[in-house]
């Protein structure tokens, strides 16, 4: 994986995914190491983000790397009409690795084709967000002790939610049983379901949340994202479909953990936060270790 861009989770084999998770474990034990102190990492956030950007930058700095970049397109020369290609070619002169988020689908693949330095995709529009996927896998493995043979439940916007698509594809390596809970309008796209079928795995679809909870090892909640809806009326119809409360977890398996890529709106009631089953804040913390593992592996320092 040295010098190889990570654009889509499908770019990595099962072994490569496991290698990153193993490395992330070692960074969790010792997050501050000087292994990237002669490296410059560019952090290009053409679209704003809190968690992803700060966790990348924190990960890089804890490994001793210098970080350059911008946190919105408004403060870059994109505002002057510069193309993505030109920005990437310019920044690649100043850095060893580029982390980028962009609102346009496919922008990261394009950047990886024009860039002489490797690219890590930190989210390209509604398409891919592979580092979120890796940190989700890390969180699942850490809380369950394994990735194999689990019952994983996805809840909310399964149609537009890119994290759900990437994670589903990645979990197809691990003999997962999928439980898909969504409003009828927001079901998992058929292309992703086809992927599950090709892996000879099973999925079930539901519209009600509570009946499925006792069957799950992982309850992966997602926000219904207003910005992905072409039609605001469609959004109004489904925005309050699910609300997980503490009492709904009474019949859950004792090992159940609730994950959420964050930010949440109202799909997880705050009374769940104090439950030992709530894992979404630790999940966000795991992002730092996974991103350290990725950057160190791509820059050939582990």
């Amino acid at each position, binding site marked *: 994986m040295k010098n190889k861009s990570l654009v*889509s989770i499908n770019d990595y084999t099962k072994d490569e995914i496991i290698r990153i998770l193993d490395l992330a474990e070692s960074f969790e034990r010792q997050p501050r190491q000087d292994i990237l102190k002669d490296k410059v990492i560019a952090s290009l956030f053409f679209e704003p983000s809190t968690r992803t950007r700060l966790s990348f930058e924190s990960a890089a700095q804890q490994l001793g790397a210098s970080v350059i970049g911008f946190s919105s397109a408004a403060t870059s020369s994109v505002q002057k009409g510069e*193309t*993505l*290609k030109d920005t990437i070619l310019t920044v690649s002169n100043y850095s060893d690795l580029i982390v980028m988020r962009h*609102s*346009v*689908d*496919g*922008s990261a*693949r*394009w950047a990886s084709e024009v860039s002489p330095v490797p690219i890590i995709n930190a989210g*390209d*529009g*509604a*398409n*891919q967000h592979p580092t979120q996927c890796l940190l989700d896998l890390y969180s699942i493995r850490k809380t369950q002790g394994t990735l194999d043979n689990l019952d994983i439940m996805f809840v909310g916007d399964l149609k537009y939610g890119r994290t759900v698509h990437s994670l589903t594809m990645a979990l197809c390596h691990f003999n997962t049983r999928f439980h898909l809970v969504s409003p009828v309008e927001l079901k998992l796209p*058929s*292309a992703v379901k*086809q992927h599950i*079928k090709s892996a000879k795995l099973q999925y079930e679809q539901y519209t009600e949340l509570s009946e499925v909870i006792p069957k799950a090892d992982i309850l992966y909640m997602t926000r219904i994202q207003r910005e992905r809806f072409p039609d605001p009326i469609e959004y109004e119809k489904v925005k309050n479909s699910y609300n997980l409360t503490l009492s709904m977890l009474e019949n859950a398996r004792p090992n159940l953990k609730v994950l959420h890529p964050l930010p949440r709106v109202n799909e997880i009631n705050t009374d769940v936060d104090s439950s030992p089953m709530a894992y979404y804040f630790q999940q966000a913390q795991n992002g730092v270790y996974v991103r350290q593992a990725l950057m160190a592996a791509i820059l050939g320092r582990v």
Partner: protein
Amino acid sequence: MSDKRKELIVSAISNGTVIDHIPTDRVFQVIKILGLDQLSNPLYFGVNLESKKFGSKGIIKVSNKFFEHEEINKIALVAPSATLIEIRDYEVVDKRDVIIPETVDKIVKCVNPNCITNKEEVTTHFNVIYDENNVMKLSCRYCEKNTSKENIFFI
């Protein structure tokens, strides 16, 4: 009308390629995809011709032009029924069907308006995939969205 006379409706060629059994409404697309409108070779075409198999068909004849397999397979997206006939000295020397290629580059626009190929000057690349009902789709290398057959729009 004999087969011979039917062939002659669109002028016979001594050397070159005949593309037969094109859906009649796709003839102009085929000309464009193959760039035949950019050539200086003599070019003949016919539309709304009688066909036993299809009811109505189109045909193209281009003089002194022969195609590589890859080149001709580009038209499979719009004219999967087409037959290619190579003519040398008025004789048919080769006859073959077009084959749907594994990749489609440059000629098709991605259906996703938010795809980078529709935002900046980026050449399109698609993998040809088949869904569970064996229906062909084009999967964009960049945005990973699928363009279905009815949404195929040529650049």
